[in-house]
């Protein structure tokens, strides 16, 4: 039906008068309520009652049925004359007593389950009367369940029916507590369907609607005068409180006391007037409701009393209220109306989307600005939808192959590199932060280093992680300074390249800092990383103040080998030229080596060609899409905090011990250190991350086994001693492999004997090339000049020989 309804507020007095003629009489009930209580001098409660709906308030509350629906031909049955028991809502065939009865039936009979002893709302009213509350929330879905017809009446004619609801509530309250005087405001909520803000249209005017959105602006609280108190300045007589009618107070012109009767003597006494709170709030569509390429819509809300200040900008709320239109008045006293109207929602109920649950003990303190994270939280503000989403995530987590599925979903456009992806996945999920009672804490963040040939999509992996990661910062090692909150544009004097120096680490607190071209980072900045990666703080010393900033960040770095390609004959250290101290702080070090593989290349080529030319591609492998993956990770990081089970702990210890023992060749006395306690910590973190992947609160044995495997895979690649083929953590911690060290020791011993033989004390010095030749003759392995010089320098350090240029002399 069409119902262009005039809002009372927008009308001129004359039109209001004319309209009132065509209105129904009041029911006895509403008369009692409207009239009786209003008499009281102490107007605080009564004033509040009327503040909710301006239209009702303005019409003096004598009759709630003033809403005209003139556009319905055929149906206007209304009763002109007064004292009949039968009355209708103007312009409809809704019988007021019928509705009142239906409401009473609903309140008295509705039970959540048939076994309940007492009706739900009677219970609630009883509670309200005991607590002296003045509101009663009515779940509209209950109404629908009980009486669909009543529900539709509430939604279609809220301005008429809601006051009836109020009355009915009060009647029930009086039955329970006969002397109960406070008004009870009925607040229907949880409508069956909530309207999308941009779908509101003129046919919704004066209907009850439910809208979701985000608060973007709140006005200050507006005191709205409800009852005016006057006092005669001559005789101090005060007339009764004057009601505000249509937003106006009729100021009495003459003192009513017959003996005074002074003219224009009455003054408004502000302190004794009653006011109600009001607030105008702007609500904007949530991002997910906006169609692509459009800007969000907004709608104004009028909030009253207890709802005032309940929502702050940025909050997601769902409001139930009456959609209203108000005429735009050009001049305050003009009699004609302009054709323009403004719309707003007069709220009856406000519900905040429960954020707290989603953010409970958020270890990552979700960054609102980050679009990556937003997709999950902003997706839906309603509990139900969130629940559904969480349920869906949980369902995904139950999949038997969830680990593989997630691995596949991570950077699906990059093939192979399965283990690396698994490592990155662990980094994204992270281990749990452990705080000891002593105050010491262990980081849960993992650091990963990728070293590899150019063109092995390291950067893409980094980009991808950066996209998913909370507060991901992507920076290039070249020209990065670790601290510094502003950036500096510098020009390389040689190449004339302009570079940007940014403070990435601090910016990525509680996130993942992706550093590309790690090897090209300046030593200065790199030294800062030491502290970041273990203590997770950054210390800044400036102007005599030493500040420690939090930088609880995971570092994901990728580096190119020092030559442009990885040289398998050299150790990792030699290849990447990073200080070993820094290297040991990475939990996982992966070598991304490009093995020429035509099959892979062909797949890449085919994929790219297909992308560009929309050639139908082979069916994609099953994978999660990016938002789901992000949501999954977010949820896991926030809500899953796994702890080690004792079996898993044992397994980890065993794994660690085995790793350490591996270096012991059977029957060999050479001891090679295979793992350090840092690696044990890494294992724990990885296994925790693996448990998180499964949404498991306990780290199981399988997690431990996989963690050991992942570390081994990573170590095998990064710490393989190319001379012996065993895992050798020494390679990382000192830069020289154990076998290399043995070789050097052997060389020194051999050299010492050689010198002892060839150079008796006091003999003339020998040239180094001569020594080299002699050594080569004697030794089975090839000795380089550099090796010899190294050996000589350590001998001279012992004070065995002295070196002057090329001359070696026995001391």
């Amino acid at each position, binding site marked *: 039906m*069409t119902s*262009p309804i*005039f809002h009372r507020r927008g009308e*001129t007095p*004359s*039109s209001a008068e*004319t*309209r009132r003629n065509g209105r129904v009489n009041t029911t006895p009930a509403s008369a009692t309520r409207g009239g009786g209580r209003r008499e009281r001098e102490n107007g605080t409660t009564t004033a509040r009652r009327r503040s909710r709906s301006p239209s009702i308030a303005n019409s003096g509350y004598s009759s709630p049925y003033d809403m005209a629906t*003139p*556009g319905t031909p055929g149906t206007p049955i209304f009763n002109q004359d007064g004292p009949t028991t039968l009355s209708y809502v103007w312009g409809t065939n809704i019988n007021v007593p019928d509705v009142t009865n239906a409401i009473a039936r609903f309140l008295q009979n509705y039970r959540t389950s048939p076994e309940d002893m007492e009706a739900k709302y009677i219970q609630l009213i009883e509670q309200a009367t005991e607590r002296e509350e003045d509101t009663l929330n009515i779940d509209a879905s209950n109404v629908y369940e009980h009486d669909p017809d009543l529900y539709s009446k509430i939604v279609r004619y809220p301005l008429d029916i809601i006051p009836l609801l109020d009355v009915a509530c009060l009647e029930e309250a009086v039955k329970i507590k006969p002397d109960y005087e406070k008004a009870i405001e009925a607040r229907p909520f949880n409508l069956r369907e909530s309207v999308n803000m*941009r779908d509101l*249209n003129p046919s919704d*005017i004066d209907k009850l609607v439910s809208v979701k959105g985000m608060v*973007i*602006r709140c006005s200050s609280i*507006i005191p709205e005068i409800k009852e005016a108190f006057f006092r005669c300045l001559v005789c101090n007589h005060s007339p009764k409180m004057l009601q505000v009618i249509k*937003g106006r107070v009729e100021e009495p012109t003459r003192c009513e006391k017959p003996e005074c009767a002074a003219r224009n003597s009455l003054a408004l006494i502000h302190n004794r007037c009653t006011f109600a709170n009001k607030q*105008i709030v702007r609500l904007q569509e949530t991002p997910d409701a906006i169609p692509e*390429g*459009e*800007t969000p*819509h907004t709608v104004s809300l009028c909030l009253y009393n207890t709802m005032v200040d309940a929502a702050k*900008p*940025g909050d997601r709320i769902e409001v139930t209220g009456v959609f209203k239109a108000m005429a*735009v008045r050009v*001049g305050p006293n003009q*009699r*004609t*109306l*302009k*054709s*323009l*109207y*403004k*719309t*707003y929602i007069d709220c009856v109920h406000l519900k905040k989307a429960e954020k707290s649950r989603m953010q409970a003990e958020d270890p990552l303190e979700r960054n*609102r*600005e980050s*679009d990556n994270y*937003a997709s999950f939280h*902003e997706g839906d503000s309603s509990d139900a939808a969130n629940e559904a989403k969480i349920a869906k995530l949980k369902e995904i987590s139950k999949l038997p192959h969830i680990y593989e599925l997630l691995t596949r979903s991570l950077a699906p456009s990059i093939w192979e590199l399965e283990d690396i992806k698994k490592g990155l996945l662990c980094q994204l999920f992270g281990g749990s932060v452990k705080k000891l009672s002593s105050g010491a804490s262990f980081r849960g963040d993992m650091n990963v280093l990728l070293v590899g040939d*150019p063109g092995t*999509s390291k950067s893409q992996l980094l980009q991808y992680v950066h996209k998913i990661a909370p507060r991901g910062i992507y920076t290039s090692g070249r*020209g990065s300074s670790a601290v510094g909150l*502003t*950036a*500096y*544009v510098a020009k390389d004097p040689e*190449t004339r*390249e302009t*570079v*940007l120096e*940014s403070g990435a680490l601090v910016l990525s607190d509680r996130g993942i800092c992706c550093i590309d071209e790690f090897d090209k980072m300046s030593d200065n900045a790199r030294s800062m990383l030491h502290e970041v990666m273990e203590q997770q703080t950054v210390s800044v010393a400036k102007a005599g103040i030493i500040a420690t900033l939090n930088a609880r960040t995971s570092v994901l770095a990728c580096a190119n080998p020092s030559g442009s390609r990885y040289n398998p004959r050299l150790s990792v250290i030699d290849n990447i030229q990073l200080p070993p101290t820094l290297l040991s702080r990475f939990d996982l070090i992966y070598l991304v080596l490009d093995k020429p593989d*035509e099959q892979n290349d*062909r797949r890449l080529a*085919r994929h*790219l*060609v297909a992308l*560009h030319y*929309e050639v139908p591609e082979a069916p994609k492998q099953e994978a999660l899409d990016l938002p789901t993956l992000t949501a999954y990770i977010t949820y896991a990081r926030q809500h899953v905090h796994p702890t080690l089970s004792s079996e898993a702990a044992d397994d980890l210890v065993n794994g660690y011990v085995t790793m350490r023992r591996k270096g012991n060749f059977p029957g060999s006395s050479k001891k090679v250190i295979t793992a350090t306690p840092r690696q044990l910590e890494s294992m724990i973190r990885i296994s925790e991350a693996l448990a998180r992947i499964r949404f498991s609160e306990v780290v199981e044995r399988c997690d431990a086994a996989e963690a050991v495997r992942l570390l081994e895979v990573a170590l095998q690649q990064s710490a393989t001693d190319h001379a012996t083929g065993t895992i050798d953590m020494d390679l990382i911690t000192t830069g020289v492999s154990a076998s290399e060290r043995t070789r050097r020791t052997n060389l020194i011993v051999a050299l010492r004997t050689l010198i002892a033989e060839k150079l008796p004390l006091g003999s003339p010095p020998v040239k180094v090339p001569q020594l080299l030749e002699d050594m080569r003759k004697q030794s089975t392995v090839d000795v380089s000049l550099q090796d010899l010089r190294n050996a000589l320098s350590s001998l001279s350090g012992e004070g065995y020989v002295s070196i002057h240029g090329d001359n070696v002399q026995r001391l």
Partner: protein
Amino acid sequence: MGGPPVDCFRNPAGAVRVLFDKACRAATSPADFTRSDWGVKELFESYLFGRNVHCKVPEINSVQLDSLPVNSLVRFRGMVQDMFDVEYYIGAYKEGGDWHTTKYMDVADVPTGQDTEPQMWDRRLLYCVPVPGENEWVKEAFSPTDGLGATAAIRPLVAVQGEKRPRDAEGAEDMDATMACADELIDNKRMREDASSSATSTSQEVAAAAVHTLDLNMPLNAVGGNKLVPCLVKVYDGLDADIKLNDIVEFFGVLTFDPELSAVGFPQANGANIDAEFESAFIEDHVSVLLPASKVPRLQCITLRKISQQTLISTLPTLHPGVPVPLPAIEQIRQSLLDCLRNVIGGDSLAAEYMLLHLLSQVHTRVDSMALGKLSLNLTGCNPGVQGAPSPLAVSASNTIAKLLPRSHLMPLSLHSLNLASIAPRKDYAANRLMTGMLQLAEGTHLTLDETALEAGTLNATGIQNLASLKHLLEWQKVEYDFQFYKMEMPADLPVLILSQAKSRMLPADAVVPLMSTATPACSTPDELDFAKWRLYLTMARDMEHTLQPSILKTVEDDLVAARQEDRTLGPETFHRWLTMARLMAVSYMEPTLLPERWRMVRDLEFRCAERLRCC
């Protein structure tokens, strides 16, 4: 149906009323005419497009605003910069037993009374700005200079005095032919030329000063005497259904002007009226009210059309009758354009090839977050301008591009401008408007970034944000709009040319070509006809469908594999570039499918380019 044609131009409201009355007579209840336009759109469309007189409708911004009669039919070509909330109005009411409508009127007085049976309707408000960066030749294509004088019957009637005319519904009828004096017409013409020449100079001017006339929200409206006005368009009956932000749309409708509403606005605090405060809280809703009608004309949209490449293709030939359609000898045109480009960038033929491909590039597909088809170009080895002036190369290149592409803009990146300018649009909740930024541009707007203007110094937070926005644009062809509580990514399609001294580290381009000036004999300076040909050629080539034959598929694949086997440093980025270039290369020959020959050309170009990069 409908009145004589002249009615539609001078008195569109009259034509609307005729149709409305007819609809009312046929209707049994108001509901019957509530959700229909009574054939108004059909009438105007058949009249405008059927007779092909749509370009004769006076256009806001090509005709002086105050010379346009109020309540006449006008058109406005602009970019949708912001979408305001829906406006509710009383669309029809009864007076004395007859129905009246206020549709296609800005605001009207509605009598109050019981029998008026007011009908509440709604309309959408679009805030449109003159197309940012639009080049002069496009303006001319859409509003032919000779159109005005030739068709005297429909030339805009000069209003006696804009603001003193009666504005009510009847006022429209009073507007029968006022004598349009000849000298006034000449005046108009001169004004327009003034406006156009100043526009040209501003588009060439340095946009360094980040002073934006924010209140009018024009994205690239740099300093200067730009007289173009934005327009508030009110759209009825869901005509805006497929209009998106940043679309270029031509609106046809009634020009209305109601200074009363904008001048008075809302009642300010009025002691006696408690409502005043209540209402003033809603003022922010009334952006439309707060925008002065003299600066932002209102257009009641009757019909509209989106401006696409096709529109341009169909419009262009009318401008230069000398250009044959379809274009003959594509290769010749292509070669002449290459020569021209080579001259502009200092006689480098390799770079000229890249430039041509770059000018043809546009995003054709988006897969996941990847934008395919973009080819941003970084020309290195450009000399900086003297004393903060933009690089001479940037100026000459952007001038040429301005003559070739419909929309383009030169943006010198200086520290100062980066630190001050707002590049990404942001929502101002206090004003309830989307504050524009330099990157709020329509699809296909070409950007020339002059990095040589960048000096060493400190970037503040804004500067970092701006640089990140530019980088994001280059990588993904998306612009993040800041909505304070969250960010919204808007897809963009802005080809970017970066001019720098050395390879730009801050702005990652798809292709990097070091310039090498080789002295080549300068070819003759191109004339207007040449440019007209090239424009049509570029537009048509961009609009072409392009596919891949399965036979070539194998060749390309094999070639990629072989290349990678040979040189392991070649990654997916390189292959993306090759494939994009191959497509563009084929398109530059107007070939609907890729030929092995073109693939070889691309490989050759890339080989030569890689060679140069190695030397540098």
